[in-house]
């Protein structure tokens, strides 16, 4: 099996401003940890640079007016204080920055490069660590995402190969952009598990969002209670993943690996550990091996505890994807290289210690609530996916 890590330092140009939570430093930290653990040198492992996405590739999912606005604002800056607002740009979440179009097109091109390698058989797994901009909409930037690399890649796979695509998203935020762009497409099954949108951004991703028209039954959502822990999260995820795969028979899986479900993440309210990243990928790999000859196109995503969580989570993701064992001790040289710069103490183990997790109050209530949600999704979606129901 061959695995490709899509990486080049040029990815760090996708940077809104110095104090922004979506900080490309996390990419450098992650790749350097992957290297320090020797996970780039194994047999069949290659590091491949990205290439920019073309306008044609962006136009499959974005409007020409939006692309023109991103280009102009990145080149000339805003001509008035609210120039960009109509496109979701120039806000605190998505500030305008010079070279915005080129930087985002490179992220999109990275995921497309990953897909080209997997679809041509050059690699079985490919991981664009800088990708995962799942909030990008047709004509609007949102939630730190300008263009939507995942949607552009799925659209390319559909057009160039006609393959049935399973999109799996375990970022703590709902994958609303990808869902919306394929909401009526029965050849793209989207499955997003996330913290409930009752409070958390983007406020969508409820069980009743099942798709529309031909695509009814092909959008699956598992909204989890705030403060959900590993056990309940993974139980809910597994409760739908396998049956959905059996019914849908994907030919390739696109996987978004946001790691902001971690208890230390400052933007969400979940209580998961690094186990969620490692186990989720392991289960998706199992499905890929069973249904689609192992083919997975993976990306990064959210993750705002950039020192203590993201490098470890994405190293575990890469190890699980490429089938390499990762030892638990974080190399001394990596800790020494970064500790000086880090405002917090860096963990010395790759995996969180399950014993160190303090149980939260209301655990039983949260688990029951999540089980009800998973059961309700199974009840409403599986008959549609299996074609038993006409969708009335």
């Amino acid at each position, binding site marked *: 099996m061959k695995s490709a890590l899509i990486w080049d330092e040029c990815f760090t140009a996708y940077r809104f401003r110095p104090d922004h939570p979506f900080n490309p430093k996390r990419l450098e930290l992650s790749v350097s940890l992957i290297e320090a653990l020797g996970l780039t040198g194994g047999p069949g492992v290659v590091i491949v640079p990205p290439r920019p996405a073309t306008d044609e590739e962006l136009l499959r999912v974005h409007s020409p007016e939006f692309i023109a606005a991103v280009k102009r604002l990145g080149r000339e800056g805003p001509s008035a204080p609210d120039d960009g607002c109509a496109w979701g740009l120039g806000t605190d979440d998505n500030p305008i920055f010079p070279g915005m179009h080129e930087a985002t097109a490179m992220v999109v091109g990275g995921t497309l490069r990953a897909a080209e390698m997997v679809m041509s058989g050059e690699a079985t797994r490919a991981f664009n660590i800088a990708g995962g901009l799942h909030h990008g909409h047709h004509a609007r930037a949102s939630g730190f995402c300008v263009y939507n690399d995942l949607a552009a890649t799925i659209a390319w796979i559909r057009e160039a190969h006609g393959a049935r695509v399973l999109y799996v998203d375990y970022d703590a935020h709902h994958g609303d952009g990808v869902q919306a762009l394929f909401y009526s497409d029965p050849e793209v099954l989207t499955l997003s598990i996330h913290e409930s949108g009752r409070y958390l951004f983007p406020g969508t991703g409820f069980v009743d969002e099942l798709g529309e028209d031909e695509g009814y039954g092909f959008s699956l959502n598992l909204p989890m209670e705030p403060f959900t822990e590993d056990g309940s999260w993974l139980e809910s995820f597994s409760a739908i993943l396998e049956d959905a795969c059996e019914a849908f028979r994907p030919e390739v899986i696109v996987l978004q690996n946001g790691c902001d479900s971690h208890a230390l993440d400052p933007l969400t*309210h979940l209580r998961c550990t690094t186990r969620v990243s490692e186990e989720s990928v392991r289960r998706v790999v199992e499905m890929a091996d069973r249904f689609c000859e192992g083919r997975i196109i993976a990306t990064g995503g959210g993750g705002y505890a950039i020192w203590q969580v993201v490098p470890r989570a994405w190293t575990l993701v890469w190890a699980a994807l490429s089938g390499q064992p990762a030892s638990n001790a974080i190399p001394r040289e990596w800790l020494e290289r970064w500790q000086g710069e880090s405002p917090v103490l860096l963990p010395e183990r790759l995996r969180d210690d399950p014993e160190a997790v303090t149980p939260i109050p209301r655990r039983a209530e949260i688990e029951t609530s999540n089980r009800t949600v998973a059961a309700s999704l199974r009840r409403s979606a599986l008959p549609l996916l299996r074609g038993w129901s006409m969708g009335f």
Partner: protein
Amino acid sequence: MHRDPITVTPDDTLAHALRLTRRERIRHLPVVLPTGGIVGMLSDRDIRLAMPSPLTVTDEERTGFLEQTPVAAVMTREVITVAPTETIEEAARVLYRHRIGSVPVVDAGGTLRGILTETDILHAFVQILGGSEPASRIEIALPDRPGELARVIRLIGEELKLNIVSIVVPSLAAQERKTALVHLGTIDPREAVEALEAAGYQVGWPSLDADLRAPESDR
């Protein structure tokens, strides 16, 4: 409201009306004259209530009844209507007060312009509550006195420059405080939550210390 609603005339048969409700999956048919004036409303329930019981007559007799009875014999003649210029809240009050599932929209000349259903009202309600744009949702407890909402908006909108996607303050019976439901157009509302708390407001947002769903007395 739905423009160009599906209608029947007073002379149409009940069989025709029943077929329309089934085919179009609707429950209410305005009854209009060829000139466009509305003279009644016919619901699927009106038809079913008028039908002879299957226990006392044969299927053929029931079919015959439907084929022979005109809409005019069964329709409700005192029609409750709203004007096209009516507000959504008044239209909702009309449905609620009269316990009806839909209301025809009729202009000053008596011509039918459309029909407004319960589902339309629910859809408007969902939009009013701000469910259609990406946002974080917070609740803010406000003392019920002038200036509090203005202060909150100044804090969020002017000082933090966050976009308020929607804001709803339900007006319930007299109480000491109200709760504002606010959708903020950001993935990261930490600053807003901190600033509001620092200004003395209680903010509803997931927290292990305060269980949001517990009754207030338990907090």
